[in-house]
Structure formats: C-alpha cells, structure tokens
C-alpha cells in the first residue's frame, strides 16, 4: 500500500462512542454496525491491497435517515465514505479510520418502470443487472454493462461513471442516466433531471456522474432503458500480430461500422482464457478480436460479411462467425472470464485501466513488453478495442518480497505511457486512491484546482470521501483566493479596451 491516506483526527477517534450513539438514534435497529468483527467485511472494496476498518458503519433505509446522518456528520465535522456494493477497483469505497461508512445496500428497490418513456426509477443499491432483470420481460435492458454487473450497484455506477464492453455504441453511465436524487453533505435533498431530457441550468448531473462519492450521496436514479436488439452475432478474428488487429479495428470504423462490442486479447490472455473455459479460441495467434454486431437481422448479416472481408484484408488467419446463441455466449465467456482465468496462472494480478487513442496500440503494447522485462513481471492484455480502453493484467505473487511494489510501479509506468500517447489514466475504474497520486501526470495545477473548486461548491469542508481522487487537499478558502496580478498579464500597459 503505497498511497497514504489523510491522518485520522484524534479528536474524532476519542469521541467514537458518542458518535455511535448519535447514529443509533438516527438509524435505529440493526442499521449501525460498530463491532470490529462485524465491520471486517467492509474493510476494503475491489482494490483489496488496501484495507482499513471504518470508524462505524451505517446502513440507512430512508432518504430522511441519509439526510439526518449527513447533517450530523457535517455539524460534527466527521468524514463520510459512501459505499454501494463495494466492487470499486480503485479504492473509491475504502473506509477511513475516522470516517463513517455510509452503506446504501438497503436502498434496493425498483421504484417504477415506465416503458412508454423508456425509463426506470430505481434506488441506488439495485444492482446493474437487477435493472435489466426488472425490465427484460418486455424486451428491454439497461445498456452499460461493467463486468461486475451481477454485483455492482447503480449508485456506484453513477459515482464511477461505469462503462462496459458496449460503450462505443451505447455510451457510459453518464449517457444513460436521466436524473438523480442526491443528498448534500449539509443534508439537503436535491433532484436533478427526471423523465424529461436535458436538465437545464448547469449540468450538475454531468458533474455528479463520475464524481466518486465526493460531491453527494445518490439516493435515487432514473435510467434510460432500451429495447434489446433483435439479434446479436459475434465473430472471432485472429491475427499473427497486434498491429494487424489494430489496423482491422481502424478499418471497420472507417467503413462506418460501429459494432455493439469490439474486444481484443493478446496471446497470454487468449491462452489463459482458452485453458480456463474452452471458448474455442485459436491458440496460434498473437491477437484475437471479438466483434459483436447487434441490431435487425438484415443489418447484422450485412455487416458481418463486411467485417469478415475487412478482417481477411488485414491479414486475419482465423475468422469464425457464431452460428448460434450458445456459440456467441461461448465467444464471450472466454473474454468475460479473462480476469479469473489469469488468476489461475498467477497467485495475484493487478488490473490496470488506461485509455489510449486506438492508433497508439502497437506502440503501447511494445512499451509494455519492454516494461515487462524491466520489472521481471508478466502481463496479459484485454482491451476494449472499440473505445481504446486497455486492461493490462500484471501478474505477481504478493508472498514474494517486493513483488506488489514492483507491480504497482509497473502499473504506474503503463498509465504514464497512456497519458504520453494522448490517453488518460482511467477509462472506467476511477481514480479513487489507486491513481490519486498520478493525477499530476495528466493534469496541471490549475486543471486540478478547477476540479477542486467544484468540490468546494458542494462540500467546502472536504467531508465527503476525503483522500480520494485529489493528490493534495487544498483548503477551499485557499482555493477561493484570486491570484490575478497586473504583473501576470503579458502586456499590462497595452490598451486593450
């Protein structure tokens, strides 16, 4: 664990018993968990290298209770860490020793489904897949599909602006959420958007989505639901080199084709997945594309032929179209099991999440091979090829002295390379604690300060999820000062007006 968290407040730790009592008054019954053995289950999220027991865990059941807890914490200046299902891969829900862990898992109801307006109103603890389950009897689904969709909550999806394999065509969470209700740290309940489109005024919904629990606590979400495509078919295309696979991806898009999903795996990932689930992947290729086309049957058949032709033109040595729904599912099973598959060939792995301009893929893969040698660690790659989102899996053994540290350094170097070629630090997993200290690789001081000023508009005491996202916690009073001096203007005496 190389990222340090804010120093806990001794004063808060000393008052712990009184804080637990006050929270028990707000959330009666079993809604407050304070025994260390019962809190252990909450000590980390999906980024398991980081662990910390919270001050106390609260599981409210009503919006009023959430508001009351936040009002209390605001008044008493106690940090609050919101948590959904705890599947964050970046430590977004990592507890603080002096912070209340506010768990939304009891907000697990679908409130209304409106097929005519193609939306559903759900509580934040409903799982991503739970939304689809609630609407699929009428042929509808919720489009963003992060790999953890069986467990991750929609509230967490909003906090992280979660993606999935279908983002290029169907967008991220931000593009599929119509409105939210959230509670500010001051305990005020605010509604943004709703069943109508384009909430006007400042796009606070856009700012809230992906804000990693630092701006407010979401208590209700209105999502867009879509009619399922009539058909979906996938094609496996194998290449002798990743360069050829990358060229094929570019050629498909240049043809005006936007596949529902377009994934790439490198040889180590292909071998691990095939060995694990026997998906029928070719094992003699360096790069494998899974291209899925969805829509009306006429369209899918038409485009599949095009994609096959483009694949062969670009040097494909294998081209296999799914002939049944079972076969399509098998093609995906390998990809979806890529992480656990890699888990079988290595005691531990560290999953990265950078995004790059697609054309830079060969350069980045070559860079990773060099780093792999430098750090003496293997790496397997799965890649959302359509949108440039890379998931390198660094293989290591935590029981070996120094390997975790080397894996983290390796990961940091990969992300630096992503930024260097015009990409970003995180495509869908969030900054959290994991990439917090890398933010200056991508942003200058003024860039980060302007982000923090949004934070100051929502939470000027830095009580919501402190220690996440921002490498340095500037006080809002300091951020508020104006620094415009005549001397800073290039030609202060030039008549301008």
């Amino acid at each position, binding site marked *: 664990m190389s990222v340090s968290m804010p120093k806990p407040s001794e004063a808060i730790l000393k008052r712990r018993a009184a804080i637990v009592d006050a929270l028990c008054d707000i959330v009666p019954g079993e809604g407050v968990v304070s025994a260390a053995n019962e809190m252990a289950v909450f000590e980390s999220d999906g980024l398991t290298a980081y662990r910390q027991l919270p001050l106390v865990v609260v599981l409210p059941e009503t919006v009023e209770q959430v508001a009351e807890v936040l009002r209390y914490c605001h008044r008493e200046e106690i940090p609050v860490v919101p948590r959904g299902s705890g599947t964050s891969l970046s430590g977004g829900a990592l507890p603080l020793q002096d912070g209340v862990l506010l768990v939304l898992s009891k907000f697990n109801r679908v409130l209304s489904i409106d097929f005519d307006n193609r939306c559903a109103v759900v509580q934040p603890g409903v799982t991503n897949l739970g939304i689809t389950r609630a609407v699929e009897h009428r042929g*509808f689904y919720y489009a963003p599909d992060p790999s953890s969709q069986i467990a991750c909550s929609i509230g967490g999806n909003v906090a992280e602006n979660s993606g999935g394999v279908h983002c290029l065509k169907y967008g991220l969470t931000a593009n599929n959420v119509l409105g939210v209700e959230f509670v500010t740290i001051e305990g*005020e309940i605010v509604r943004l958007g709703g069943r109508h*489109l384009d909430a006007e005024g400042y796009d606070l919904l856009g700012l809230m989505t992906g804000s990693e629990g630092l701006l407010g606590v979401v208590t209700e979400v209105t999502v867009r639901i879509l*009619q399922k495509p009539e058909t979906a078919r996938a094609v496996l295309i194998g290449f002798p080199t990743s360069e050829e696979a990358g060229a094929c991806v570019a050629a498909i898009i240049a043809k005006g084709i936007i596949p529902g999903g377009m994934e790439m795996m490198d040889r180590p990932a292909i071998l691990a997945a095939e060995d694990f689930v026997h998906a029928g992947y070719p094992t003699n290729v360096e790069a494998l594309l899974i291209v899925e086309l969805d829509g009306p049957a006429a*369209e899918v058949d038409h485009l599949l032929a095009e994609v096959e032709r483009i694949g062969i033109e670009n040097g494909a040595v294998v081209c296999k179209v799914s002939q049944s729904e079972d076969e399509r599912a098998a093609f995906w099973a390998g990809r979806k099991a890529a992480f656990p598959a890699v888990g079988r060939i290595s005691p531990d792995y560290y999953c990265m999440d950078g995004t790059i301009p697609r054309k830079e893929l060969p350069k980045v893969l070559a860079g990773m091979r060099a780093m792999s040698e430098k750090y003496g660690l293997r790496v397997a790659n799965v890649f959302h090829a359509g949108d440039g989102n890379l998931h390198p899996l660094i293989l290591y053994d935590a029981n070996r002295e120094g390997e975790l540290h080397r894996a983290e350094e390796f990961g940091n170097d990969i992300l630096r390379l992503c930024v260097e070629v015009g990409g*970003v630090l995180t495509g869908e997993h969030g900054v959290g604690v994991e990439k917090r200290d890398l933010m200056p690789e991508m942003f200058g001081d003024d860039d980060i300060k302007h*982000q923090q000023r*949004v934070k100051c*508009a929502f939470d000027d005491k830095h009580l919501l999820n402190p220690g996440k996202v921002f490498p340095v916690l500037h006080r809002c009073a300091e951020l508020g000062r104006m620094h415009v001096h005549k001397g800073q203007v290039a030609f202060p005496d030039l008549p301008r007006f």
Partner: protein
Amino acid sequence: MTPGSEADLRDIVAVAVLAEEPLAIEGTGSKRGLGRPVQAARTLSLAGMSGVTLYEPEELVLSAKAGTPIAEIEALLDAHDQRLEFEPMDYGPLHGLEPWQGTLGGVVACNLSGPRRLKQGAARDHILGVRAVSGRAEIFKSGGRVVKNVTGYDLSKGLTGSYGTLAVMSEITVKVLPKSETEATLVLRGLSDEEAAGAMAAAMGSPAEVSGAAHLPAYVAARVADAALGEASATLIRIEGFGPSVEARAAHLGKALERVAALERLEPEASRRVWRDVRDVRPFVDGTQKPVWRLSVTPTKGHAVVMSLRMQAAIDAFYDWQGGLVWLRMEAGEPEDGLVRETLRRFGGGHATLVRASESVRAATAVFQPQEPALAGLSKRLKAQFDPKGVLNPGRMG
C-alpha cells in the same frame, strides 16, 4: 475585443477581473437572442480563435478552437462521411438571422441538440474535452480525446450548456460518428396529438432503433419543407442506417403502424428536408417576435400539457423527441410564463425556456426554469467558484 490566442484570451479576462468590468462572451453573436440580456461594458468575441486543430476520422475525434464556424466543421465531417451525432440545431432563422452563422463554442455553450438527441444523446454527451479560461483568468483543461475517460470531474459537461457564465472555452474536442448510409421517414397522417403520443411511444419501444419521432399538428405540418406534407397532421418516425437495415426496419415498423393511421414514406432527400425544418423550428419562423417556448417534459405528457394550455391561451405547438420537446408559440404576444410553468408543474415537471422574445421581454421574464432553493444554491456556489467577480456573461442565466 477579439483575442487571437488562448494567452490573449486569458489576459483580456485578467484585465476584466482587475477592473471588475464584466464581459459579454460571444462567437459571432448569432445566439444573442438566447438567455437573458447581458449587461456588460465590453464584448469578448471568440471569432478570432478559429480552426480545426485535430481531425482523425478513424479515431472518431475532432478538436477545434471555440470560434470555428459550425458550418465549417459540418462540411469537413460531411466530406469524410461523418457527422456530429447530436444533430446541432440552429436558432438563427427563428431569431430572424441567416442560418448557420454560429460557432462550435456557441453550440456547446448552449448545449444545442436536434431530433436525434432522443436516441443518441445531447451535445453534452459528445464532448470529450475542453480547454477554457475561467473567471479567475486561469487556463485549465478537462477530459481528453478518448471516449472512455473517468479521470477527474467531467468539467467538459459542466461547461456545456453554461452559456459562457463559468468559463470562456477556447478549444473543444468532440466525438464524431459515421453518417448514416441512408434514411427513411414514415409519416402517419391525421392523428390527434394524443393518438400521436401513443404511436410514437410504440415506435420508440420497438427494436426499430428510431432516430427521430416528431408530431406536427395540421397547421404546423403545412409549414415544413415548402408544404410538401400537405395540410393533415403528420407524425414523423425516422429510421437511419445501412440500406438493407433501413428497409427491414421500415417494413417491420410500417406493418405495426399501418393499423394506426394512413401511412406514407419519405425517401432520403425529402426526409432530410423535413427533419431539418423540425430541428430548426421552421414552422415558427414568421418574422415576428411572438414569444416561443421550448418545453422539456416527460415525453408521454407533452400532449396533455399542450391540451391544457390550449384551453387557457392562444398557442400553437408542435412536438419533437417523442413528445418530450414541445415548441410553443404564444399567439397573443405575451410570454405568460406563470401559466406555462404552472401547467408544466401539474404534468410531472420538466423545464420551460423562453427561446424567442424581444430583449425587453427577456429582461423582465425568467427565461430559464427557476430552480428549487437547494439546487439554486449549488448553482450559485459553482458560479462563485469559477467566476468570483462575476465578469463572465453576468445575468445571462439569471
């Protein structure tokens, strides 16, 4: 003042901050009629900061300086068989100006989207990154050039639709997509507004991937595409994509809808003309200053809002976005904002924006939907964080 570079732009804002003299921000000034009139000593024009700085068709990305004419960007994309998927609309004609005089910065600052917004999202859904100068006279950037990016807060969305009141954008990066190979529009004739709402909901809920759903009542239908649609009311359902796919979906949807009403079909050229006119509110381009409202409501409730208003005021209306976008012209010349907003509230809420009215009417009317106190407080604090001296377009959204 017309800065030629980002550094000049920052200096101009710095001088305004030091002097505490507000600036009116504009591109070419084509959207001056939107929002509340700005009381500012000086005008800052982005027209001198123009030009596409990056366009990689295979990466589906384009960057341009904020003052780049939107017409130039659309022409460049068109030459590569690509487009801005949110189908930016143009208020020029409604405001008595020539069409397509605006800039990319203006489109983004006002978050202008067209009929395809219903399926593919608004301008704000396609902005990947921005560079800007805040009211603190500091240059900052947000986002990047890739679609999948959750690194830090999405200030690009924060600035989209902020009418130049938080920061002056200098450069914008947008996601672009391939143009549709072809399109067709099914036209249902003679439906009432309420029947049309049902038909549009059915079409949107089908797997036909409808990319436009509008309803033009009889009077309005005669005022698009040089009266090509004739007099009867017209409910328009647009389908775009590859040839075989459009045929299959149009046939399938046509079969389902032919029981509802008499059905016609518009081929690509006629379809594009009709949708352009719907997008740019051409039926209300009348050379007058009669107030025009843009209502954003729950789609299935649009017709009920209009019906209720018709009982109480002389109005003319038509619908886009499956009924969720209502264009409303007040025939008596008064904005009647109280009536409009109260009616909206009774039918599930949403927002009403006064998009055409004389300057004096806009100065005296809440042009944007008033916000609840908690939300208004957050907006005010955000403005104070980005523009503490209130020098950027003061009052434009107020």
